[in-house]
């Protein structure tokens, strides 16, 4: 099944909340993982792996560096989901 943008933001918010403790309502499209959401490079790997599982998508390591904001991740998953 394909996920909507809204579902992806909601899912990523839950993942970021679990990993970095940021309230779900603060996780928005324009937020930077590193600068706004307290997700460092190690935790970003956790976010990516959790997102892969949840949204049934593969995010290769070389693409992770391009995912600066929540919006970048949402767009990537929208484009690549099965």
């Amino acid at each position, binding site marked *: 099944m394909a996920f909507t943008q809204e579902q992806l933001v909601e899912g990523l918010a839950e993942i970021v909340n679990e990993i970095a*403790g940021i309230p779900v309502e603060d996780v928005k499209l324009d937020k930077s993982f590193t600068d706004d959401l307290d997700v460092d490079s190690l935790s970003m*790997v956790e976010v990516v792996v959790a997102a892969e599982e949840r949204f049934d998508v593969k995010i290769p390591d070389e693409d992770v560096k391009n995912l600066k904001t929540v919006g970048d991740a949402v767009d990537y998953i929208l484009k690549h989901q099965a």
Partner: protein
Amino acid sequence: MAGRSGVKPLEGERFAELPVRIAALAAVDPGDVLPRPLARRLDRSAQFALIAAREAWADAGYTAPAGEDSGLAPERLGTVIASGIGGVTTLLDQYDVLKEKGVRRVSPHTVPMLMPNGPSANVGLEVNARAGVHTPVSACASGAEAIGYAVEMIRTGRADVVVAGGTEAAIHPLPIAAFANMMAMSKNNESPTTASRPYDTGRDGFVLGEGAGVVILESEEHAKARGARIYCEALGQGLSADSHHIAQPEPSGRGIAAALQHLLDSTDLKPSEIVHLNAHATSTPQGDVAEIKALRKVLGEDLDHVAVSATKSMTGHLLGGAGGIETVATVLALHHRLAPPTINVDELDPEVDADIVRGEPRPLPQGTIAAVNNSFGFGGHNVVLAFRSV
């Protein structure tokens, strides 16, 4: 001081097949004390260390990390937190993840969590320590070696303040199986609270414990300048190595005696002022007696006025954490002038030729008094620390 044992049965299927199914589990789960995002990226040993360090830091009167708000320059602050084994549960748990869920699911935090210097590094980040962040590793002497190293950092002028201690969290089937197969552990599964019984004729090995003990060491000048409460003076350390066997204690106590002699030679501690000793005494048949023999050899009749306590009878053996919590116990014994009890000594081993504090705590004399804390480790490491009342 209450003379209560913290040893409990180990519940759950993963412990069911082990010959040893008891341990002194921490009364509070450290993962429940720390915020979840922080706790999930720290090994349990680092969680214990961080909580202990925060408590010590606040108790020392610091309300902020080193920097402008605390009036302490980060370059003058160090940490020395030791662990005997490091993040062994992280390593083993992540190996399970690798086997069961695959490569991709192995946590990217695994290496910082399993490295033995992780607790020291995390505490260093917490308090903003830049003079140095260190981790001596000498098995069950690690925590004491950390305290000694911290004293040297201050004495040699590298730091004004050092956060020091030891931590361990190794209650997992594999370390227990390994220690049990060395025949080092008590198999008294039927009676957990009486299993750790140093100096008793019925002792049959140590009981594993977990947790951390951390103190703030500070130069006298620095502590007085800021009006800090001073619990005691750290006199220094005595060190030696057995060079006898990788895991067996040297039966005559030769190495322990050498460490104690080194302490007497390298500090101004006088045998006549020692009134209390927190013994290594892990409740093993050989080790407990070798330690007492060494004490008698070096101190002679002066051992008669030393109230000897084996707090592992209550806490179990925290391995690399032992020197940390036993330093806390020794320092507080001086501060409150009360030696903690040794429990479960129903029948004192006749070879134990020393004044053991049995059953109840014992008041210590007024005036200037000193206490010694012993820690020894697999590998033949002997560390003896001394403190004096202020």
